[in-house]
């Protein structure tokens, strides 16, 4: 499966059960590049207005191989070797974090990188890793 995450400079994902940040330019990139995605309920109010096609699943146990998962509320490390491809959008900014990305990238190879301006972030870096 392909997993998409957004991270700050300290690999943070959440603070106090809230996403650290958001940017419509990231959603536009996801919409253009990946078509339909799978999300958990946490992401529904963010994704719904974006026009991205999505399938809502209750827990990560419902994820299947071959799907593209936009993941905000759980650490991708919990999906382990089910992940074939990882897409990381980096905010290039620091926030508070009490949930961080801990998946080891030792078994992944970076196959793509691009930078673009966000609507509220000066520079967003997109990296693609494949196992």
């Amino acid at each position: 499966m392909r997993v998409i995450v957004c991270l700050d400079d300290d690999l943070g994902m959440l603070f106090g059960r809230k996403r650290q940040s958001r940017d419509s330019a990231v959603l536009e990139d996801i919409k253009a590049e990946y078509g339909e995605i799978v999300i958990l309920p946490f992401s529904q109010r963010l994704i719904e207005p974006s026009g991205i096609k999505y399938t809502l699943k209750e827990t990560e146990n419902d994820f299947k191989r071959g799907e593209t998962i936009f993941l905000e509320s759980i650490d991708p490390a919990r999906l382990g070797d089910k992940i074939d491809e990882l897409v990381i959008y980096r905010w290039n900014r620091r926030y508070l974090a009490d949930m961080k990305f801990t998946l080891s990238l030792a078994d992944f190879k970076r196959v793509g990188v691009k930078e673009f301006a966000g609507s509220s972030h000066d520079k967003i870096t997109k990296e693609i890793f494949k196992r």
Partner: protein
Amino acid sequence: MKRFLATVALLLALCMSFAGCDFLPTASSSSSSSSSSESSSTPDIGSGTIDNIPPYAGNSYVHINDGIPSFTADEITTTAYEFYSELDSLGRCGYAEACIGKELMPTEDRGSISSVSPSGWVQASYDCVDGGYLYNRCHLIGFQLTGENANKKNLITGTRYLNNEGMLLFENMVADYIRETNNHVMYRVTPLYAGSNLVASGVQIEAYSVEDEGDGIEFNVYFYNVQPLIYINYATGESRLATEGEIIVPQPTPDDSSSSEDTSSSEQESSSADTEEHDYVLNTNTKKFHSPSCSSATDMSAQNRQDYHGTRQGVLDMGYEPCGKCKP
């Protein structure tokens, strides 16, 4: 609104005049129900109320009241405003409050604020402090949120650690949210002093996004005004390097007679629990430390790994935070 502000101002005055009163009371009602449906793990989170803030333990913050702020329904508005308390008789800032929208955010670069000397401003430089200087003139409501520059009612004596590892990172979240959504955020910052100390023990920040009813922003957080490796006399603002084993955290036991020479104050006591030595694995990239058996330690790249034998407090003093998973 005015009645609420008057009430809080009265509570502030009463509290500050009351020896032994460590913290301000919070508003009694909590109308802002969370619409968050997510149940992620949030390690290192404390809970409770402002009355029982735990001692600093390596994290720059602790959540209060499970993160739910105390704005009442009558207070919540989409009309932008900002309010800054008058300084008290000791020259200390009180709480600052705003409904922040894009209309309040600055459109020009920040100017100099060096003309303001907040209460307890006794600047000192240390090699172990990022940037060299212990104190920052710390905005209660950050410049990036309301554009307040050299407003003495909005600047306190805060450590570099409080400013850069706590408040600034929090403000980044709120500022990004407002810029991205064009929504408004109710925002209240309350510096908390022990007795007649001139330096605040910490700062409480409450924030709540209005239009989406807290879906984007809903926090109630206390930030510790501490600096690893540095002893601070909170009564005066004077400071020195901490000695080994000395806890550098304010344990506010107000003693109005404390002097700058009183370095054996009950504010800072050693703890035998932190003097036992153990093996730890430090991640020099994430600045987390782990038990050797933690999966994050075994998966760590050699480039980022540093093995360490010593006290837990020693690791904390080096600026590392405990792993939320193995809780070393």
